[in-house]
């Protein structure tokens, strides 16, 4: 019997979905939802879903409670937080926090931006399977005999047949008692993908630029994760030299050196060639910088690396150029000239947060 409430619940989810969709652009621009993230779910503040009433403002009302403490002592807050929330800031914004699965969010993103589904490559190439022990059976090779289960079984039989003497606890398994581990062949995820994020952390990249990168990377992750079961992410930062870091460091490092973009490309190439063989992996390098490279020589080296070795190995190479007051922005022009015509290259200029939305569309709209 399905419950009557399911209808109302489905209706509610529908409304939430609609609201998120309608406000998606705002979420993307403000990066509001990034950060409140669980493993599979994300909490999204959805505006104006609650039914409004004439009611008192919470902060001007206060209340009565009981317990120890002196006047002036802090409460641990009616909502469990120390009351530092920013609720009720905007006009007409009664927020309700709703949990949405990342899968659903990706779907909403896809619908709203009209993104094409990605055709993963290498579907038929991967044939590896892995063994997984899944159960117990009465027959099998001796090497897989399950000692404990075998003795348990023997004990059970002895007790049932009355031959067990608790004064002299001796358990002797016979042939029928033996138990063996059984296994299954589990195919490895059919499609694997890796996203390699590269970012310029030289002095000219400010906090706002990094924020833009952070927001973009969240949505890119979400979208790609929908299409690839085993999505890995790697992070490379570079100024004049490149190194691989974890996610946290990636978004919070600030260096002051010059910029040699080729160093990052070399490192990415090393990763790809070393760990992510293009025959079995879908590779997505994303590079963000302010477009200021050290020298024209280095740019030439970059273009060579891309053309000769990176582009043939990856699904899609994306370069996002965030505007910064210091950068010359020359790099994207050079790239456009050299590789702009290649079909697995996507170049995008991101002037400010408003431009994130179209830029995501541009990156992911290629359907690669």
């Amino acid at each position, binding site marked *: *019997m399905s*419950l*009557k*409430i399911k*209808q*109302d*619940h*489905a*209706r*509610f*989810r*529908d*409304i939430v979905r609609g609201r998120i969709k309608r406000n998606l652009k705002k979420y993307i621009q403000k990066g509001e939802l990034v950060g409140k993230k669980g493993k599979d779910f994300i909490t999204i503040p959805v505006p*104006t*879903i609650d*039914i*409004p*009433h*004439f*009611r*008192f*403002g*919470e*902060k*001007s*009302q*206060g*209340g*009565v*409670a*009981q*317990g*120890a*403490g*002196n*006047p*002036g*002592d*802090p*409460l*641990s*807050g*009616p*909502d469990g937080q*120390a*009351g*530092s929330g920013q609720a*009720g800031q*905007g*006009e*007409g*914004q*009664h927020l*309700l926090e709703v*949990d949405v699965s990342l899968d659903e969010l990706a779907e909403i993103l896809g619908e709203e931006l009209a993104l094409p589904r990605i055709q993963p490559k290498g579907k038929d190439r991967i044939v590896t399977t892995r063994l997984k022990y899944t159960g117990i059976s009465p027959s099998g090779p001796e090497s897989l005999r399950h000692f404990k289960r075998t003795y348990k079984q023997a004990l059970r039989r002895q007790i049932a047949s009355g031959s067990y003497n608790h004064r002299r606890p001796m358990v002797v398994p016979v042939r029928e008692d033996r138990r063996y581990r059984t296994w299954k062949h589990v195919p490895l995820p059919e499609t694997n993908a890796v996203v390699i994020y590269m970012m310029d952390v030289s002095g000219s990249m400010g906090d706002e630029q990094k924020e833009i990168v952070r927001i973009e990377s969240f949505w890119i992750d979400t979208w790609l994760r929908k299409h690839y079961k085993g999505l890995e992410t790697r992070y490379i930062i570079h100024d004049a030299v490149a190194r691989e870091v974890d996610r946290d460091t990636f978004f919070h490092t600030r260096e002051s050196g010059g910029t040699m973009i080729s160093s990052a490309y070399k490192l990415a190439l090393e990763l790809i060639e070393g760990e992510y063989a293009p025959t079995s992996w879908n590779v997505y390098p994303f590079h963000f910088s302010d477009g200021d490279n050290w020298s024209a020589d280095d740019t030439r080296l970059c273009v060579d690396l891309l053309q000769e070795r990176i582009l043939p190995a990856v699904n899609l190479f994306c370069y996002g150029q965030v505007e910064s007051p210091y950068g010359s922005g020359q790099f994207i022009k050079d790239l456009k000239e050299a590789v702009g015509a290649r079909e697995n290259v996507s170049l995008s200029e991101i002037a400010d947060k408003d431009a994130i939305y179209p830029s995501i569309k541009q990156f992911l709209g290629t359907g690669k």
Partner: protein
Amino acid sequence: MNRHTQLPAHLHDIRNRVEGYAREYGLDFFDTVFEVLGFDEINMVAAYGGFPNRYPHWRFGMDYERLSKGYEYGLSKIYEMVINNDPSYAYLLESNMDVDQKLVMAHVFGHVDFFKNNFMFRHTNRKMMDQMANHATRVRRYQDKLGVEAVEDFIDRCLSLENLIDYQSPYVKRRPDRPRARASEEGKEERPVARGFKTDREYMQSYINPREFIEAQQKKLDEEAARKKKFPERPERDVLLFMLEKAPLERWEHDVLSIAREEAYYFAPQGQTKIMNEGWATYWHSKIMTERALEASEIIDYADHHSGTLATHPGQLNPYKVGVELWRDIEDRWNKGRCGKEYDECDSFVERKHWDKRLGLGREKIFEVRKHYNDVTFIDEFLTLEFCVQQKLFTFGYNEKHQRWEIMEREFRKVKEKLLHMLTNFGQPSIAIEDGNYENRGELYLVHKHDGVDLKLDYARDTLRNLQSLWRRPVNLHTKVEGRGTIFRYDGREHADRRAEL
């Protein structure tokens, strides 16, 4: 409901025993039907406010999601739910232990006794179970005809106004049953003339009816005449009723709005007696359990769950806790005679402390109180200084400077004042329609009787918009914002505020 929800045999036995104990203590309740539900079903019923046959609406789905999440994460669990109806319906959670079921049953009989006897519930529909199903059928019929979204959207707007009812109206007569036969209605606007007291002796006239008196009388009459011309005659707190009577609604809209209003009035007394009702039920489950129903092996679990319901949290008042303590305090005071003139006038701390006249009137008193009080009068009359100190009550508020919630006061008068303020008018702002033809333009003019606490403005604006969509003409709301009189106005297209003192 389905047959499988009937009580299994062993619960049936427990139920009969607990019911027996409850009756022995003098509780007087409707016949009560217990049903056993799984957690999913109980969450559903709870989302519907206890009525499995509610009309379809997404808000119930939202509540359901919240409840199921709470259950899944192990944060909250619904133990008990009971419906004010005759017979009463109560729901038990399938997975609970027997000792919990026992506790819940005892608790439920306390609630049902309260529903049956407290004066606040005298006007509620005791066949609400059927009425709700009836409402659902009506709403469904409209949805079939007009589409789900149109009806749902209208319900949203009705619900937005559901607290604009007159919480006292079931208990007082606000207007005459039949409209007065008005002579002036036939177009002739005669100015009534004050004649003063009758006297046959002409020479006494100036003594019996001096000129000032006649003038005062005349003024009163004129005012009354003016008021009659006003519309509504008196400020109308039952905004929903006013809408039903005067707003240009379609037939189905009228019906849906009346459904929302009826349900709001049905649920109102439960909110207005929360502390008393929960306290009363807790008092009785603890009495029945500890004195009669508990077995030795169940004591630990009972104590655990009982203390769980009575736990206090820093930022909120637990009605179970305050309620049960107050009931016990009343019983104790009347048992010992710590009430009345003699006790109140006694100055000696020691004497007061050991005061015991052995009157034994406690039980009788609490049964009387459960009949004639609601939360406001209950707190007003029985919350004493001693109680406030002993229970460590305090007021709290938001400190803008420190950006946090803080304990404000422990002073008895302040605490009581705040508590009463929270309970008065059901904790809702008191808003009434002053004029249905504001500035002679058919606009609606509402006044918020500001008592120190501002409205939540973003909500207020959106609610105003919903009100406007029913009234069709512009609506105005007078309130105060940070001490300044302000009129909020919504004309169907945009919001406007302007300064205006009353």
